[in-house]
């Protein structure tokens, strides 16, 4: 089971990176969050039943875990003892292009749920799949996505 899981996780490792970038981008020890997401995936793996794609299941577990961690940090500020202020943007600028940086800034201003929705959309999941992962109706999902996209494009085009 471990070998199978490792192989599946390796092939979909981009999902973990994306979620860490989305929710924990400016944390100083991002690797701890990445590890925690992998552990949560491993704990949940025995319940994976192949009814959905592995990547869809993985998104569900990782998004729930990430939102959960953020919630815990709100009640127990010393839970992570880490500085959550924007501290390493200049380092990120070395690695990413200007457009990538603008996109990240725009997405960082969204709510936790909107971040989840837009990530799934940018990863080319259908409205139906996004609705299932998030727990909304398909119609609501479409409306939400259009609103979020307009918000992001506006933020990027305004340059701040």
């Amino acid at each position, binding site marked *: 089971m*471990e070998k199978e*899981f*490792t*192989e599946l996780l*390796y092939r979909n*490792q*981009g*999902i973990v*990176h*994306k979620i860490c*970038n989305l929710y924990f981008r400016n944390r100083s*020890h991002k690797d*701890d969050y990445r*590890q*925690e997401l*992998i*552990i*949560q995936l*491993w*704990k*949940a793996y025995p*319940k*994976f039943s192949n009814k959905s794609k592995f990547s869809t*299941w993985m998104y*569900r*577990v990782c*998004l*729930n*875990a990430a*939102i*959960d*961690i953020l*919630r815990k940090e*709100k*009640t*127990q500020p010393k*839970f*992570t003892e*880490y500085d959550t202020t924007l501290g390493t943007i200049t380092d990120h600028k070395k*690695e990413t*292009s200007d*457009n*990538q940086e603008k*996109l*990240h800034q725009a997405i960082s201003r969204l709510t936790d*749920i909107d971040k*989840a929705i837009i*990530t799934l959309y*940018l*990863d*080319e999941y259908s409205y139906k799949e996004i609705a299932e*992962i*998030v*727990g909304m109706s398909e*119609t*609501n999902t479409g*409306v939400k996505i259009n609103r979020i*996209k307009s918000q*992001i*494009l506006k933020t990027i085009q305004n340059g701040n």
Partner: protein
Amino acid sequence: METKDLKNIWNALADNQLVDEKLAKENITEIISKKGKGLFSKMTKKTIFDYWLYLIGLIAVPLATTMVHLNLMKPLPTIQAYVGIVFVELYLIYMFINARRKLNFIESSNNSLSIKESLVEMQKKLKKAINREYRLGVFFGIGIILLTIIQLVITGGGLSNIDFTSFPTMIAVLLIATPFILPMLLRYEFKLRYSRITKDIKQTINELEEI
């Protein structure tokens, strides 16, 4: 900038961070076999340690007090000493319940439900936790009442001989209100501490339901 451009930028971000296959797989295997060496696993171990420490303390203090009561060869603790012990016990009760809360929430993470279902489950969990703590408060409170009455009667030399004008005795008598005050205090403290999360969860569920 079009939607297609956004998608290309987004995918490029993840690709920048992919590493060599062999290294990546070894790293994954190491993480899942050792359950991580990072901060979260340390916090979980610390919380488990705190939980057991306060539980043992919670049991040991009344046990030790009871053994002293039963051992008639030794002098009995005065009412002042007893009141002091009870406040230590109340502190241990609070710390134990706190550790139990943290453990509950640490263990609640892994699920493959939709985000909304997961939030609804968390709401139910919070409600159950408040009610459970209330019951624990009543349970511990009754324990304290019984021990306090026993202490008052034994130290005072019988009900008719208790000096209700002495300060320590007055405090001891007030302790009899513990099963009423303690659960209410725990419930109040829980709601205060988790009010932000409860509000957050409610808002997020509403956000998922509205158009």
